[in-house]
């Protein structure tokens, strides 16, 4: 006994019954063309920037070969140049910034989403966004004119008591000598890192907050009903739910920290050797190198700077795409378009 499905006779005799709606009229076709043109224009512009950068970087890369990645000096006119020193400097500054910014941003995001009174929340969100909008030159100015002089004590303390950690060592300073000059602690990776941390903390914070506030109310109340304290609820519901947002936000902040120019340029005193001692005078970054040397007119020098810029761009690109992927795959990011 099989049931057979019979196709209903299609309306050959009544063509009026199903009228196909034309998808678009003349105006609509024009509208689509304009939209496509707009999208294409932006695509062409952006691709042009990328392709041009790579093409311009070509000659310098060909000249330097693999030594571009291992050379510390930057003397393009004599053919000896590489990004080993500036790349390490960039990563160190960004690393210090992330180490300081992530705890601050996590705390702030938790405060806004879990602890703050409801009426205060909108104001706090606005303040954090405002902090992200403050121009980088203002942060740089603050670091240059204020922080530089006030953080030396902390730097000396760290160098004196924690110098057994390899990165915190300072050569050429004797903590037992009360008359020793303190300039060895200025213009360091550490100070630049603190300033950059203040700039990226709000960026990280707003993404984390977005993820935390989306933690489902049912699971929160479930945790409370099982007798959890507020911290217990946060640890077992909010933090696991927002993990993707936390990692993604951190990586986005890292991308910003890698590309930061002016604040770093104002604070550091550039050196072209790998300087692993973060507390010690002398640091460098790719963007500061470009700002410092763009005026040198030579063809090779410019191409070399382009190559350094491309290396920086590739680094931020990988970090940003990684962040976008992690946010999109996480539970909190699946429903939103952040």
């Amino acid at each position, binding site marked *: 006994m099989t049931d057979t499905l019979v196709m209903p006779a299609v309306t050959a005799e009544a063509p009026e019954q199903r009228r196909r709606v034309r998808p678009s009229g003349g105006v*609509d076709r024009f*509208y*689509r063309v*304009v*939209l*496509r*043109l*707009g*999208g*294409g*224009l*932006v*695509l062409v*512009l*952006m691709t042009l*920037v990328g392709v041009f950068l790579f093409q311009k970087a070509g000659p310098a890369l060909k000249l330097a070969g693999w030594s571009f990645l291992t050379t510390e000096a930057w003397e393009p006119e004599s053919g000896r140049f590489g990004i080993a020193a500036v790349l390490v400097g960039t990563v160190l500054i960004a690393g210090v910034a992330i180490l300081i910014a992530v705890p*601050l941003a*996590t*705390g*702030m995001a*938790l*405060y806004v989403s*879990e602890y703050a009174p409801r009426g205060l929340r909108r104001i706090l969100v606005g*303040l954090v966004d*405002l*902090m992200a*909008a*403050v*121009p*980088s*030159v*203002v*942060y740089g*100015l*603050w670091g240059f*004119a204020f922080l530089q002089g*006030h953080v030396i*004590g*902390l730097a000396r*303390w760290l160098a004196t008591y924690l110098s057994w950690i390899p990165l915190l060592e300072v050569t050429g300073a004797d903590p037992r000598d009360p008359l020793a000059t303190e300039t060895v602690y200025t213009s360091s990776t550490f100070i630049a890192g603190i300033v950059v941390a*203040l700039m990226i903390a709000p960026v990280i*914070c707003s993404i984390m907050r977005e993820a935390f506030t989306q933690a489902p109310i049912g699971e929160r109340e479930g945790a409370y009903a099982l007798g959890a*304290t*507020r*911290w217990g609820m946060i640890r077992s519901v909010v933090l696991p739910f927002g993990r993707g947002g936390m990692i993604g936000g951190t990586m986005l902040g890292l991308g910003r920290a890698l*590309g*930061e*120019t*002016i604040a770093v340029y*104002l604070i550091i005193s550039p050196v072209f050797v790998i300087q692993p001692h973060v507390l010690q005078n002398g640091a460098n970054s790719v*963007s500061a190198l*470009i*700002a410092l040397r*763009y005026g040198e007119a030579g063809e090779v020098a410019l191409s070399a700077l382009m190559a350094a810029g491309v290396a920086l761009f590739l680094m*931020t*690109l990988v*970090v*940003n*795409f990684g962040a976008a992927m992690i946010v999109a795959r996480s539970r909190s990011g699946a429903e939103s*378009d952040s």
Partner: protein
Amino acid sequence: MPEPRRNTATLRQEDVLSALGAAVAAFCLTALVFYWIAPFTGVLGFMVCWFLAFLGLFAALVWLDRDGPAVRDRLVSVVVHGIAILLLSALVFVVGFTIMRGFAALVHPNFYVEDLGVTGPLDPLSEGGAVHALIGSLEQIGLALLITIPTGMLCAVFLAEMRGPFPRLVRTVVEAMTALPSIVAGLFIYATVLLMLHFEQSGLAASLAIGVMMLPIMVRAADVVLRLVPGNLKEASLALGASRWRTAWHVILPTARPGLATAVILGTARGIGETSPVLLTAGFNKAINADAFHDPQVSLPLATFMLIKSPQSSMVARGFGTAALLLLLVLLLFLIARLIGGRGPQDLTARQRRARARASARDLARYQRRTPPTTPIAVTEEVQ
């Protein structure tokens, strides 16, 4: 006897009292140990020690009549509050420091009307000003917006409205370009417009550099806003017979208008404060140059950057004044963005809601005039 009402407030009196007590005790203890017994000085170190002692004493106080999980809960709560206060006070401090140091220059009215063209390095603050940088900033950001708003909005609508492989490609490329460091955008314009096309350093070149940097940021922000427009609004419009173009113009864009305005204004705030692309492309000029197409033109962040490195204290004060001016400009933009776009689509103020109600009543009256009341609309009962 009625059951007493339970207190469900999350702020408990005992916690507040023990926090206060712990704070006072920690202050006294730290003051004693830090300044009298141990040979330490410094406000920063004092604050850190105070906070650590506070944490310890507070935990001990809570532990007197609560168990482990409660102690951890209160400790985390205190730490989170501390971090929030720290971060907010850092913001207030950065902003306050800049404005305070810039105050010396800001109080002179000549700061807003004069340039630095004839001001020598030793002239007092009552001469010279920053109006040249202000003009430069406004012209450059205006030119950049003139380029980025039409292309950016068109591209965002394209991304939100079209489906298929092409928009996906555009979206990926735009997202990739948001990672472009601003200095590299400046370097690109420097290499193309200045060195290959032989333009001179000018406001136009600077605005192009800012535009290259701003465009992907703006497209991305606008795309996110446009995708938040509820799908049923679009479907309703299409079902009423409107074309796609009319749907976009009369439904999608008006619904997303506050969000789009916010995206544009925040992009503007970001662009106006950028120093590094301008550093490479605009050149430096001490006098007013209102012509953005020829000769170097300085902007507020660039002027700050240049002035602050000067050895003369009056020039440094002017640098702080310029920075404060820039900061106030960004604050203003930010406030406008908050006022326009603080609410999501469909979330109306009471006044907007009344306006909608009035418009709706007018429409109703119009329909009733059109359909004579003597012939009511026939309601036919169809078969089940």
